[in-house]
C-alpha cells in the first residue's frame, strides 16, 4: 500500500495511534520491533499491516526489551526504526533507551501512557511517566520527549521525533496518552512532498574507511553515522568509549563523551523546542498543560479568561520561556494527570517569581474542564 497523497492533501478520520503509524511511515520508518501492550497496540498492528507493502519489516519480539534491541540493531544497519509501548513496557524499555543514548543510535519510542504504578489501569489514561521519560534509564543522559495534544500532532510529532533522532543520533520519546491514542479526529495529511524529512548524516565520500573514527565529533555535535555493511567496519558499545568506539575508562574520555551527549542536545534546542504561550493582555494567571489534559485545560482557561501554555516538547524543559512567563504573571497553574511531576519543574524554573499551583488527578479519568475551571476560580484567578 502506498503512502497517502504525494502531491495532494488527504483528509482522513484517524485515531491518535493510527496517526502515529502514518507519521512514522511518512518519516521513512521501515522497521518496527515491539511487543503487544494496551493502549498502544494499534501502532504495532498498523505497522504490521503497512510495512510489508512498503518493503519494510515488522517483528513481534518475545518481550519489550527485545523490541527495542531489534530496533537499535535495525537502525545500526541503516533503517529508521520504531517501537511503541505503554507504562509497564516503558519500564522495561529503559535499559535499551540508555544503550541508544550512549551508543548514539537513532530510534523512536512511543509510550502511550496509562495508569500506574505497575499494571495499574491498562485501559485508562494518565500522565505519570513524565519523570520516567526524563530519568528512567540509569546514568546522566539527555532526553528528548515530545507530547501530542491532538491526532494531528500525533502525526506531526512522530515525524519530528524521527527527524530529531536522525539529526542528533539519539533516542526520542513520544509521550502520548490513552485519550489522545484512541480519540478520533479529522485530520489533513499534507502531501509527502511538503514534509521536511531529515536523514542521518553519513561520513563524507572522502573519509578514509580504514582509519574511520565512528565517534569523532565536535564538542556539541553528534558524529556522522555509517551503516553496518557499507564498508566502514567499526565497533559500537554501551561502555564509555573513545572516538574509535572502543571501551575506555579514562577520566578525560569519559567526561568528554558525557558532556558531548548533553551538549549536542542543548545546541539543537531551537529545533527541539515546542511551547505555545497564549497570554491575553493584562492577564496575571496562566495554565500550563500537555497531552490530552491540555485540551480540557484550554477550555477552562478560555472560560476563566486566563492565559494558557501548551507544551509539545516536555524535555528538554523550556526553562527560559517559563522563567520569562513567571515574570509576567502572578499564578501559573499546572494541570496534569499525575500528582505534580511537571509542576515541580515549573516551580524550580519559576524560582518564586510566580505562585505555582498544581491541578491534578490520578483517577484514570480525563480531567473535566468544569473541574479545572473551579480550581482556577477557587484561587481567585
Amino acid at each position, binding site marked *: *500500500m*502506498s503512502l497517502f497523497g504525494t502531491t495532494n492533501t488527504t483528509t482522513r478520520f484517524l485515531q491518535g495511534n493510527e496517526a502515529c503509524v502514518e507519521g512514522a511511515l511518512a518519516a521513512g520508518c521501515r*522497521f518496527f*520491533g515491539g511487543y503487544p501492550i494496551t493502549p498502544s497496540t494499534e501502532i504495532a498492528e498498523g505497522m504490521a499491516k503497512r510495512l*510489508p*507493502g512498503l*518493503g519494510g*519489516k515488522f*517483528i513481534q*519480539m*518475545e*518481550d519489550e*526489551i*527485545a*523490541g*527495542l*534491541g*531489534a*530496533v*537499535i*540493531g*535495525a*537502525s*545500526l*544497519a*541503516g*533503517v529508521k*526504526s520504531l517501537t511503541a509501548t505503554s507504562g509497564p513496557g516503558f519500564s522495561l524499555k529503559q*535499559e*535499551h533507551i540508555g*544503550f541508544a543514548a550512549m551508543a548514539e543510535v537513532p530510534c523512536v519510542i512511543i509510550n502511550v501512557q496509562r495508569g500506574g504504578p505497575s499494571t495499574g489501569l491498562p485501559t485508562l489514561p494518565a500522565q505519570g511517566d513524565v519523570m520516567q521519560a526524563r530519568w528512567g534509564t540509569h546514568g546522566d543522559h539527555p532526553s528528548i520527549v515530545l507530547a501530542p495534544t491532538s491526532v494531528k500532532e500525533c502525526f506531526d510529532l512522530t515525524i519530528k521525533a524521527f527527524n530529531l533522532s536522525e539529526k542528533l543520533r539519539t533516542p526520542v520519546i513520544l509521550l502520548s496518552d490513552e485519550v489522545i491514542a484512541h480519540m478520533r479526529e479529522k485530520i489533513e495529511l499534507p502531501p509527502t512532498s511538503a514534509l521536511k524529512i531529515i536523514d542521518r548524516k553519513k561520513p563524507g565520500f572522502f573519509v578514509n574507511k580504514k582509519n574511520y573514527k565512528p565517534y569523532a565529533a565536535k564538542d556539541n555535535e553528534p558524529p556522522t553515522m555509517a551503516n*553496518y*555493511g*557499507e*564498508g566502514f*567496519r*567499526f*565497533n*559500537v*558499545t*554501551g*561502555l564509555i568509549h573513545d572516538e574509535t568506539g*572502543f*571501551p575506555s575508562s579514562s577520566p578525560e574520555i569519559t567526561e568528554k563523551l558525557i558532556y558531548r551527549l548533553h551538549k549536542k542536545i542543548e545546541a539543537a534546542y531551537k529545533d527541539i523546542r515546542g511551547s505555545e504561550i497564549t497570554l491575553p493582555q493584562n492577564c496575571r494567571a496562566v495554565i500550563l498543560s500537555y497531552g490530552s489534559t491540555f485540551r480540557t485545560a484550554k477550555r477552562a482557561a478560555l472560560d476563566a479568561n486566563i492565559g494558557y501554555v501548551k507544551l509539545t516538547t516536555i524535555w528538554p524543559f523550556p526553562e527560559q520561556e517559563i522563567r520569562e512567563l513567571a515574570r509576567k504573571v502572578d499564578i501559573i497553574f499546572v494541570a496534569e494527570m499525575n500528582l505534580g511531576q511537571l509542576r515541580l519543574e515549573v516551580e524550580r524554573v519559576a524560582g518564586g517569581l510566580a505562585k505555582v499551583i498544581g491541578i491534578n488527578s490520578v483517577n484514570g479519568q480525563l480531567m473535566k474542564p468544569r473541574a479545572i475551571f473551579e480550581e482556577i476560580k477557587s484561587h481567585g484567578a
Partner: protein
Amino acid sequence: MALRDISKYLRLDKFPHIWCPGCGNGIVMQSVLRGIDKLGLDQNKVAVISGIGCSSRAAGYLDFNTLHTTHGRALTFATGIKMAKPELTVIVLTGDGDCSAIGGNHLIHAARRNIDLNVVVFNNSIYGMTGGQFSPTTPLNDIAATAPFGNLDPPFDLCELTKAAGATYIARSTTYHATQISNFVIKAIQNKGFSFLDIITQCPVYYGRMNKIKDAVDMLKEQRDNARNIKQWSILSDEEKQGKFVIGELHNQPRPEYTESYQSLIERHIEKRQPSPKSEERETKSREE
C-alpha cells in the same frame, strides 16, 4: 602444517586483550576466525554481535561490523540487523550466563524463529567478569563465589534446550578440540537458519581455582578425558555417561528461515497491491458496462 595468518581479522591496535592467562576465550575466538577465513567471507559483510561478559569482549577485537550490546540481549540486536540487512552474515558471541540466564528468553525465541544467526557460546560454566559466581551451566555441587557450599541449581544442557526450541544446526565442542570448532563454525554459517555452537572453554582463574583444578592445562586435559564423540556417546550406558559429555554435530535439520519467509511475504504483498493489466482491463470494461 603451518596455520594460515588470520591477523587481518583482528584489530591488533586494541591488543593486549583483557582475558586472564590460561583463559580459553582466545582459542574460541581464533577458531571462529579460522572458520570465517576458510569460507573466505567479505569482512564488510560480516556483523559480530556480543552481549556482556568476558566472552563478549571478543567482538571488539575483531575487524568486522561489531556491536557490543547489553547483558543477555545480543540476540535481539542481531535479529534487528539480520532483518534490516539479510545479506550480512551475523555471528553472535556470547557466554553461558549471558545467553542462558539473563538472555534465556531471547535464545529460545531466536531459535524458534529459525532466523539465520550463528551463535557461539563460550561456555566456561561461570560468571568470570564479575568474579566467579555460578551460572546456568555450572555442574551440581561445584563451588562458585555465590555457591560457597556447592551449587544446588541443576545445569542446563544448552544443546538440548535450543534443539527443543527449534534451532536447525547444533554442535558442541571444546577448546581442546580447536580444529573441530572451526569446522562447526563453517557448517553453522552455511546453515540457512539458527545455528548454535556450545563451546566448552576453561576459566582457570575462577572456576578452576575454586574447584581445585590445578591450571588451564589440567582443565584442557579434563575436556579431553570427559568428552565423548556422538558415536561413542550413543553406546554408553547412563552410568558410563556420568561426568562425561557429548561433543560433535548434534542436530542438523533445515526448515524455512525467518528473513526469507518475511521477504516472500513482502513480495506477495507488493504483488497483490499492483493490479495486473488484465484486471485493470476488466475494471474498465465493467465500468463501461
